[in-house]
């Protein structure tokens, strides 16, 4: 299981080697998450239309190693955009992947860009 977790590391925008197209913006439900596949990774993509932002994180919740974060509800805690894991409601910041509300776990985040209605996620591999 740790092997799976090690596949996910935060990619910053300047480290991007490949902007991978994952679909059209309209394929992604508003104010919700959806899952995309890139190589052997599952990435949760969030169309946070309420604040006009897109986020991408690993789909794997590091708490119990389930591929579920894209199913979680999004929102904010003290103005930090977040996702709540549907399994046990662990909260993670969408900005930097850090655990919120007394949760020491951390998830990887990926840059997202929208061009001509297409959604691209940035990867370094």
């Amino acid at each position: 299981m740790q092997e799976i977790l090690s596949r996910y590391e935060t990619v910053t925008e300047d480290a991007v080697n490949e902007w991978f197209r994952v679909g059209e913006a309209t394929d992604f439900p508003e104010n919700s998450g959806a899952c995309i596949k890139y190589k052997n990774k599952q990435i949760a993509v969030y169309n946070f239309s309420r604040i006009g932002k897109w986020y991408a994180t690993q789909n794997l919740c590091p708490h119990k190693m389930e591929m579920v974060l894209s199913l979680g509800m999004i929102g904010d805690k003290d103005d930090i955009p977040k996702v709540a894991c549907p399994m046990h409601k662990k909260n993670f910041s969408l900005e930097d992947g850090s655990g919120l509300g007394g949760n020491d776990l951390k998830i990887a985040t990926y840059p997202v860009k929208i061009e001509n209605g297409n959604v691209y996620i940035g990867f370094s591999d």
Partner: protein
Amino acid sequence: MKHIIVVGNGMVGYKFCEKFAEKSEAKNFKITVFGEEPRPAYDRVHLSEFFENQDAKALEMAPAEWYADNNIELITGERVCDIHRSKKTITTVSDQEFSYDYLVLATGSSAFVPPIKGVEKQGVFVYRTIEDLEGMLAYAAKLKEEKPNAKAAVLGGGLLGLEAGKAVKDMGLEPHIVEFANKLMPRQLDLRSSQVLQLKLESIGLNIHLSKATNQILGDKFITGMEFGEDDVLDVDMLVISAGIRPRDELGKTCGLDMGVRGGIVVNNKMQTSDENIYAIGEIALYNQMIYGLVAPGYDMAAVAVDQIIGKTETLMPEDIDMSTKLKLIGVDVASFGEPFMPASKGHSIIFENKTQYLYKRINVSHDGKRLLGGILVGDATDYNMLHQIYLNGMAIPEDPSQLILPASEGGASFGSVLDLPDTAQVCSCESVSKGDICCSLTEGESNNLSDVIEKTKATSGCGGCKPMVVDLVNETLKSLGKEVREVLCEHFNFNRQELYDLIKVNKVADYEEALNLFGEGHGCEICKPALASIFATITMETPNRQPGIQDTNDRFLANIQRNGTYSVVPRVAGGEITPDQLIVIGEVAKKYDLYTKITGGQRIDLFGAQIHELPMIWKELIDAGFESGHAYGKSLRTVKSCVGSTWCRYGMHESVTFAIDIENRYKGLRSPHKLKGGVSGCIRECAEARGKDFGLIAVDGGWNLYVCGNGGATPKHAILLAEQLDDETAVKYLDRFLMYYIRTAAPLMRTAPWLEKLEGGIEYLKQVVIEDSLGIAEELENEMQGLVNKYECEWKQAIENPEMMKRFKHFVNSDDTDDNLVFVPMREQKMPKAWS
């Protein structure tokens, strides 16, 4: 330097000095205290102890040196006889004049002497001061020389009267207590506790005479007896009058302060009289039209006056004054607190009485059994402190409140609330957080609310099972810190669920986004989104297909998410009745999709292990065979469990299966604050376990008994009888009203049992609402429910017929691949997810 003159050096006058001396501002003031009695203030409450040791010093509040040490000038044996408000001066009997900036009147009270013929005779005393006692002692000594078995009576069976009774007994006289009322301590005790106390007092030699109105005092020069009526005479050689108090308010009267009709100087909540430079405290102060004859309120008044004078003007006398008392009277514990006598209309009384041990305990609890309103303890007041605290703080009491007063050997247990848990008690076993961790986080200021506590201590962040207790602990601790506890949905909505329900309904709000814009702030979270989804569903019967983004994952995918991220499928099997053909369909579907199958506790079949993209295919086959969604994933009606009833069972009284099917079909799809389960049993053997459900019907002779607000789960609760012997139609009518009322008013994720516990007035109140229509909303509730019933449609059928809605049943947006992360292992004849590592 400002000059304060305190008139009166009793207990309250002294307390004013003591509190003042503690303040740093005291150095800016000079205090002069006048006491009429020859000695400094003493503890009048324990006056009868003077007989044991005749040591006035032992009763002193503080020695004379204390006053000097604290820069307070104490002038005893000097009565103040006039106040000149225009000059701000006072004069004393010896014609000395003193000027003041602030005047504090604490002259207390004197004994009330009723106008009885012969009251002026020798041998008649009042019981108030050490001088009174010395007079009594001298007279008693003389009596005993002349008459070895002399008798003394005390007029008044109140607190002080009984103390006086002990005093005359200690003097070696035969004591008699004469009381006008039909009970002792009429202000503190009820009739039964008075009888217990009387037995005890008689056992130690006091003679008690109740319901006696004294006509006259007999004798020529000296008292020889008391006459109550014709031929009703008590021979006594001495009489102590203890028939109440009168405020020593002459000073107020002569200088023209506002006075009460029956005496007392009128004060406001700053303890100020009608002259802003003159304060009155203790038994002369008429506050809220009351004279408070207890020392504790007097001390509070002293503290208020001190703060007012030094400029801390926010300190005010509270509106409600606690008149609870506990004392040891002639070796007998007597206590009363809160409302000792309470009419049955306000609550229930629980009474424990054991005359052989001279024990009496009564507690009064609210009708819902949740709050302690007051009580009386005679013979054993060891529980007083805890009971008084529970009463003062409105703490939770046990479901069976008798535990609070039953002797330990009879199943009673020390119980208060979550706060009574030891600090070391582990509240959250997942994160090993103790009660102390949670409370300290609040008391030490690290946390201010529940979410802070969760963040700092991590309590509830594991399985969450401890959440109710943590919420209680946080609320109780905050309350004990004097902070307001307001239940709001989450940081995005400053309203509770019921308020939001009304706002959304009245304003015809279209969706979650609009609600957030109108009534909320921020961008929502996993608490408010599903809570509002539930509200929308219970107002308009909309299915989760309309706003999938605000649904809990289960509702979003109309299936229960399981341990490995796969889903389970539960078709509705109303009442648990299923045909062989339906069983075959379920079996075939399960086989085709390789699903693990299990019979559920709600008499239906659960199919586990479906992947998200398989859900529509599975449901298409089930719907084609006539099945509907079982809503096993929703906070909604689950099942109505039934026993086989009169159609087959030889004991059955009514057709429980038919009724269960009808009810389940009536409420299917109904969203509610939490899941709802029902049960219908065909006889009192109760094979459907209906009393373990949110609503249960049990067949009895003449109809159905309707029980509500039960559940299994972590805190099992039996449902409580709401109504008896109902016909089918009335049972459904009451159910409509009950369910709709719960749906409207419960907090999110609050099941019916805790809802009822929190409902003010409890089951009796619920009966009034549901049966007697006390709120006048019964018809509205029925119509709302009928509206929801009419709008039902199967949400799975809705979803599979709509390609737009089908889009979400896919694991990847950018690939038709399935989740390759799933690993199953075999178990018995079936499969299960690989265990968490």
